[in-house]
């Protein structure tokens, strides 16, 4: 990203991070009821790890980036469900160990943060456009 209109790139990197978070949350929500037999690992909820990108003009930083996707525990929650086709000898199956409340909260935080970045983008763009009209 060129240094001339760097705010646009910074805001874009933020949008990228929050989009990844929304994607990960969507995947988690989609897999809330993914049941696995006890011989396999449970669905592991995806957690996005964000980090700042150092550098940029005047060292103000170049935005944020996703460094890795952490997976929650593979144990999950072992539930007694003897009627379940995937149940083992003891009648147990694995459910993912996450709750919908956390996921929905994350979704709202990610959505709002994405919108905030869009606002920053628009304001920066307006500011640059106004700057081009100086002296006109």
């Amino acid at each position, binding site marked *: *990203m*060129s240094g*001339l*209109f760097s705010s*646009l*790139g910074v805001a*874009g990197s933020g*949008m*990228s991070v929050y*989009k990844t978070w929304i994607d990960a949350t969507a995947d988690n929500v989609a897999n809330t009821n993914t049941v696995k037999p006890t011989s396999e690992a449970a669905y592991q909820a995806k957690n996005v790890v964000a980090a700042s990108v150092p550098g940029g003009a005047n060292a103000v930083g170049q935005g944020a980036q996703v460094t890795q996707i952490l997976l929650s525990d593979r144990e999950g929650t072992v539930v007694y469900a003897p009627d379940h086709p995937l149940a083992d000898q003891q009648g147990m199956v694995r459910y993912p160990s996450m709750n919908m409340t956390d996921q929905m909260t994350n979704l709202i935080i990610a959505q709002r943060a994405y919108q905030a970045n*869009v606002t920053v*983008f628009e304001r920066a*763009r307006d500011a*640059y*456009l106004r700057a*081009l009209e100086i*002296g*006109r």
Partner: protein
Amino acid sequence: MALIPPVGAAMVTPIQPTTVAPTTGVESAGAAARSDSFGAAVNRALDTLNTQQLNADQMARDAATGKLQNVEDYLLTAAEAQLSTQLTVAVRNRAVEAFNEIMRMQV
């Protein structure tokens, strides 16, 4: 009447060596200045601009064909291309304005 010197060969001849002899020197200096001139700067800016526009076009194509991964990538590239275009045009307009101002100058 004696104060006005006659227009003769003596007045014209000294001009000729200054105009003819250093032509090569003047030309090479002009060429060197031209490579770093306003025209060259505008050319370079237009080159960068063209690359950015091509990037934006590629992104638009990706969006149309479903290859685009991030919506914001396209908007970002498009906005940057737009701003760069306006910046280049603004600089060019300002320079042309200045040139016209000089051309209107009474000598």
